[in-house]
């Protein structure tokens, strides 16, 4: 057994220092398109590139609705007048009017927090990014976040996926079984708007109609740091993206 101890010690500390210090390692986030200034002709043709109606002409150019964006890169690669693209990962916004100011949610969540993850029908990428939160790089235990398999112990419900008809009942049962107060974090374009799956005979087009979502994390999939930011927002330990007037501010809540 000692070989494992030695190996473990030799590996050293891998964990990110986020949220105390910004994480800048390459490949931790795909970034996202941001509002871009363009002439109205160019804006029109750019909008047509988006397969999920995430782009909208604005007075100054093109706006992007991050709830829809599926990271297809068409608006940057398939055109000569691409959208501006920005790195970072603090994308989470508070979706419900209960917390529009991005202020603290209250003292109930100030200590360790148990999180129930429900995959309501995604492609597996969001779920895999959630799993990464437990790897040594992100090591969310250090922040007092723990995944729990049982709704009875859960403070936060973290939902990924477009909500298939088959997952409605299990999701409802999980939510109802959680004690109050509780928070719902929806992560990924599919959970927010249905993503590429949209609304169909099998998909509800997101979980918002079905559950009171408190925090929305855009991305397809959102990288682990974005999900971590969403969790920190949900427990009042980080302000929302909107409060910096960064991408995905409250201005676009409710669009789409």
């Amino acid at each position, binding site marked *: 057994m000692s*070989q*494992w101890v030695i*190996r*473990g010690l030799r*590996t050293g500390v*891998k964990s990110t220092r986020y949220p105390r210090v910004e994480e800048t*390692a*390459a*490949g*931790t*986030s*795909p*970034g996202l398109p941001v509002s871009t200034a363009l002439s109205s002709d160019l804006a029109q043709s750019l909008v047509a590139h988006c397969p999920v109606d995430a782009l909208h002409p604005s007075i100054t150019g093109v706006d992007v609705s991050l709830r829809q964006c*599926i*990271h*297809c*890169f*068409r608006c940057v*690669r398939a055109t000569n007048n691409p959208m501006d693209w920005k790195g970072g990962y603090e994308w989470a916004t508070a979706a419900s009017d209960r917390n529009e100011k991005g202020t603290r949610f209250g003292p109930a969540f100030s200590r360790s927090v148990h999180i129930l*993850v*429900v*995959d*309501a*029908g*995604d*492609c*597996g*990428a969001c*779920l895999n*990014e*959630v*799993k*990464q939160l*437990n*790897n*040594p*790089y992100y090591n969310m235990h250090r922040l007092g976040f723990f*995944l729990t*398999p049982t*709704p009875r112990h859960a403070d936060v419900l973290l939902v990924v*996926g477009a909500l*298939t*008809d*088959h*997952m409605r009942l*299990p*999701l409802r049962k999980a939510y109802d079984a959680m004690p109050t107060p509780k928070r719902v974090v929806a992560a990924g374009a599919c959970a927010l708007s249905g*993503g*590429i*799956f*949209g*609304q*169909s*005979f*099998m*998909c*509800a087009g997101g979980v918002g109609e079905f559950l009171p979502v408190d925090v929305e994390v855009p991305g*397809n*999939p959102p*990288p682990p740091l974005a999900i971590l930011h969403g969790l920190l927002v949900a427990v009042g330990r980080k302000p929302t993206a909107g409060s910096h007037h960064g991408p995905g501010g409250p201005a676009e809540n409710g669009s789409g």
Partner: protein
Amino acid sequence: MPAELRELVQEAQARWTSRVGLSLDGADGTACQMECEPSELPEICNWLFSDRHYSFGGLVVEQRTRWELRYAFYGSEASWVHVVTYLSDAGDRFPSISGLVHAADWHEREAEDLFGLVFEGHPRLGDFVLHNDVWQDGVTPMRKTFDGRKPVTHRAPDLNWKPRRIVEETGAFAMPVGPVHSTATAPVYFQLETVGEDVIRAQPRLFYAYRGLEKIAEGRRADDVLLIAERISGTSAFAHSLALCQGVERLCHVEVPQRAASLRVFLAELERLRHHVAAIAGVCESTGLAVAAAHAAILEEDLLRISGSLTGHRYLFGLNAFGGLSTDFDDAACGRGAAAVAQVAEKLTVLQGMLSASSSFLDRLEEVGIVSFANARDFGLVGPIARASGLSRDLRKAQPYCGYDAIKFEVPQESEGDGYARLRLLFREAEQSARIVSAITRDLPAGRFRIPETDLRQGAALGWVEAPGGAALHWIRLGEEGRVERYRIITPSFANWHGFRLAAESFAFQDFPIILATFALSVHENDR
């Protein structure tokens, strides 16, 4: 024409003369189509599967002016055989072939559920893709008359619904697990029926993540369907988008530039490596070996970051495009990526060495969850799972694409078919992938990364890849204006979930999570 196929055609001509319409399709003579009456299906398919040892790829059902059923088989050399049968739109009864070709079992169940076809003689149709506690009877979403864009009225939820129990024995106990279970797992339900410690039946109930992808693809533009292909299984996104691209490119007679083909191999192997490393992490975790699991998880994240910094996306979304790739990469950047991959591979070798010296770990894997060669063949298992049981078919060798025939690599094989054989196989395949990555980046061909415009033609074609989990087949039919008429997605997880219970049954209850981890199955890839 490959010798294997020539021989097969001769025998088929002699044997079936007037009963089968034989035609050689495909410019390179690599596909043979055998048209027959529905009543001849079982005999012909059985001949291919049992006598000629062709692998059963899958069943494609199409509702055109009449029903068209296509059973795709492939041999060990570059040869596909499609057995095709027709029936007027008014009928809906076909003979089941799964009594003889057991690999077709779930394909028939799926077609029964989604198209409302009847497979006479199939022993176990019923609750499958469309859950019986949710859907009203008689809904057949894959029929052309069904509008897939509208929501459907379901049954009122029945909180007491349970799947049928099979084991009747004193002391028998049914343990329900799922669909929300453990921490951060995909939705699947198991009814584990035990007597004492042993699991007697372990039938999974899947399709909680059924997103109806084949249906919602219909009527959409082909390049939008490419986005759906990427999201069949996010952890095998590149493989599936490649399969679709190759189908469309075959249909439209597009020759992909050499640089694009090489970059595709590079990315596909990077994805395979990451997939296998994640699977290894899962196995370590299932046995409670926390330090090893953490090490493997570090390597998985390393690979995600390598993918992310090279391509912009950690899961390689948005890269495949008809005619090549959506963007080019700098040769030097690819070289740096390959060097980083080589470091990961080195650490993986160290991890393997340490694991193989941990006897308490090996005790949990050796002679646990055994799948025999015969079972693997009968159930049509694919990929690493099949190869760990001695069934070595790999589409990169059997049906080469992207220039894999010019690349030197091994297809590892093990024979025990137990958990440890599957784990060793993952390590060995990961090593091969890392080698391909470094070899291919050493001399990337110069030139274009994409054919600028692909003229979409009407018609249908099959695209295939060896995805990380095994053989993936995509049948694509395009209609007017490049709109998709039919998109059939056959995935390795669908084949392997079918055989999973073989490994789990008759082993102890506490081995179940470990056996599950050694299969490294994707629920999303299965459910679609």
